[in-house]
């Protein structure tokens, strides 16, 4: 459902056309970041939790094959059917196979970025199965035929009036009523009918426990729980990186996830599924889809530690001002900007350049992924793979050449300081300085080097 043709700078510029809306988006997302800070400050052991989570994930990745095998065997002994899928196509085929065998007509799904990644909804719909996304935000974007713009808050890019209009059309809510409580309860009533009439339920997985063969799903709405406790068939899809070794390790991760994601001490429901409901069947589909290849890259493998909290998006100054819709990969923001290019550098090169390398994402990441460093690495990869626009490539090459020749660099600076003040304003109209309504800055008399040299000499005196 995502559009690989999106180029971040153009898409961001489009988003910024509506300035009041863009400003609102920025502040709405920043508010969540602040709630995260408030929660982190309440725990004196916050940094220790991050360090432990990082170490547990790094350890798990270093023995991933063993833990996956342990998980699969244990789940099987619990009576769960375990499937392995190498790619999105195989995942979709497996899921459709399970549903078709049971003559399922309607599937209720709780939010799962993995099924988005695999393009499951259109695949099933093309085969005559009705798919209902049940997370409220996800349902909103599904009804709008959009993709989620955030991995935790899928509809954060929309105003309540837009949702009111949508619900009026889709569910017959009152004209002009966009009160969030009213709309939420209308969706509750509407979706409850779907929960009660679905033939199968599907969820993603937040954590999979090797020791017990069970999966953990965290939601505030209870949609995953309702979706799998009513219909007889329960399918959970998980990426191979969701594994943790033991149940006790959840005592670290469940403390970090919701605090980092939404600034809440925990989600309403942290549910542990080890078997099907009585009289039902449970399936777990374990998906690779490029992850094992990322594991082989020492530079980018740490991205597999991600627990999908979205904290990196909420803090990112670029994400907040450009929205998730501006990124070409299904996962936007800093983490998506390394995962996307890891998968396909040609398609997603522009994402890695949508970064100021401010490092805020790395600072909030609960599992300490070195996101801003990875993004620099992805840029180098994009350059080598010739996935950078020609002008940008030329500019980078020129800058690189200048940096390598200090005398030339100094000279160019001197020329610039002399020439810019005497160039007529009109000639600078289309330069980067002027494009966004900025005035040309006043040129300093001395270069930074000169200023520093004088200061150091001054200190010596």
């Amino acid at each position: 459902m995502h559009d690989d043709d999106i180029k971040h700078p153009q898409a961001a510029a489009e988003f910024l056309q509506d300035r009041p809306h863009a400003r609102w988006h920025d502040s709405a997302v920043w508010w969540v970041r602040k709630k995260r800070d408030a929660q982190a400050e309440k725990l004196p052991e916050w940094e220790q939790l991050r360090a432990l989570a990082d170490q547990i994930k790094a350890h798990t990745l270093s023995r991933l094959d063993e833990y996956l095998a342990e998980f699969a065997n244990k789940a099987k002994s619990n009576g769960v059917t375990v499937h392995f899928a190498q790619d999105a196509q195989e995942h979709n085929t497996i899921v459709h196979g399970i549903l078709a065998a049971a003559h399922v007509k309607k599937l209720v799904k709780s939010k799962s970025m993995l099924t988005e990644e695999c393009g499951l909804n259109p695949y099933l719909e093309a085969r005559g199965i009705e798919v209902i996304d049940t997370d409220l935000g996800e349902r909103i974007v599904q009804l709008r035929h959009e993709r989620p713009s955030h991995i935790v808050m899928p509809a954060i890019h929309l105003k309540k009036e837009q949702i009111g209009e949508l619900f009026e059309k889709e569910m017959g809510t009152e004209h002009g009523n966009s009160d969030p409580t009213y709309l939420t309860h209308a969706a509750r009533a509407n979706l409850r009918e779907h929960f009660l009439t679905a033939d199968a339920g599907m969820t993603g997985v937040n954590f999979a426990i090797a020791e017990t063969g069970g999966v953990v799903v965290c939601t505030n709405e209870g949609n995953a729980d309702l979706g799998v406790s009513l219909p007889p068939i329960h399918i959970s899809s998980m990426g191979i990186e969701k594994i943790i070794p033991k149940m006790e390790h959840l005592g670290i991760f469940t403390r970090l996830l919701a605090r980092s994601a939404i600034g809440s001490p925990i989600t309403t429901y942290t549910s542990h599924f080890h078997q099907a409901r009585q009289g039902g069947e449970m399936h777990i589909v374990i998906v690779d889809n490029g992850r094992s290849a990322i594991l082989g890259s020492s530079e980018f493998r740490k991205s597999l530690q991600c627990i999908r909290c979205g904290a990196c998006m909420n803090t990112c100054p670029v994400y907040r001002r450009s929205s998730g819709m501006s990124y070409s990969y299904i996962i936007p923001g800093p983490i998506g900007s390394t995962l996307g290019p890891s998968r396909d550098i040609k398609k997603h090169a522009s994402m890695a350049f949508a970064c100021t390398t401010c490092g805020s994402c790395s600072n909030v990441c609960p599992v300490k992924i070195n996101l801003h460093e990875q993004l620099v690495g992805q840029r180098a990869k994009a350059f080598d793979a010739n996935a950078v626009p020609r002008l940008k490539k030329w500019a980078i090459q020129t800058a690189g050449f200048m940096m390598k020749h200090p005398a030339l660099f100094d000279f160019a600076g001197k020329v610039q300081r002399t020439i810019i003040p005497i160039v007529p304003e009109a000639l600078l109209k289309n330069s980067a300085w002027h494009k966004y309504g900025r005035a040309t800055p006043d040129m300093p008399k001395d270069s930074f080097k000169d200023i520093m040299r004088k200061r150091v000499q001054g200190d010596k005196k």
Partner: protein
Amino acid sequence: MSSREQILNTIRANRPAPVELPDIHAPVFVHYDDPHQQFSTLVETLGGCAVYVNEGQSVLDAVKAHWPDAGQGRIVNLLEGNNAGQSHTELQAQSQSPHDHQNVDIAIVAGQLAVAENASVWVSNANLDCRSLYFLCQRLVMVVPRERMVHTMRDAYAQIKIEERGFGSFIAGSSRTADIEQSLVMGAHGAMAALVVFV
């Protein structure tokens, strides 16, 4: 070769250097002077409420004191030896499918453990065959012995057991969402309100 073998083989070929598993029990974690106070204050912000039953008061009395309209709708009471409301046995006899809980107004279930740091309660009831009860009821009451309180999730995982046919959940307050313009709304898909009764 099966997909399972192919995936595991690729992982084996790409395995990073070994990393030690840390000892998660080594650090000292937060300790609340009054964990009950911490729990009660926090659960309010999560759309729930905590009450304590007094001498001679039954759980149902406490529920009715909290929700004066309780009793007008269907009440299911899974507590052992408590005959008020629909009992476990009656429920089992009547419930043919998980869908039968859809008209339950108040469900009273046992909670095995309460966690001070996040106001969640661990529920995993042995012999409950329809886990849908927790999520389909309009109002959920979790009854926890007051001495069963721990400080953090690390302490909780050291004590919990998954009883109900492989299912257990930490439930904190009421079902909620903030998907529309970040406005917090209580009552998304699960229970609209939650009450924790300490006995």
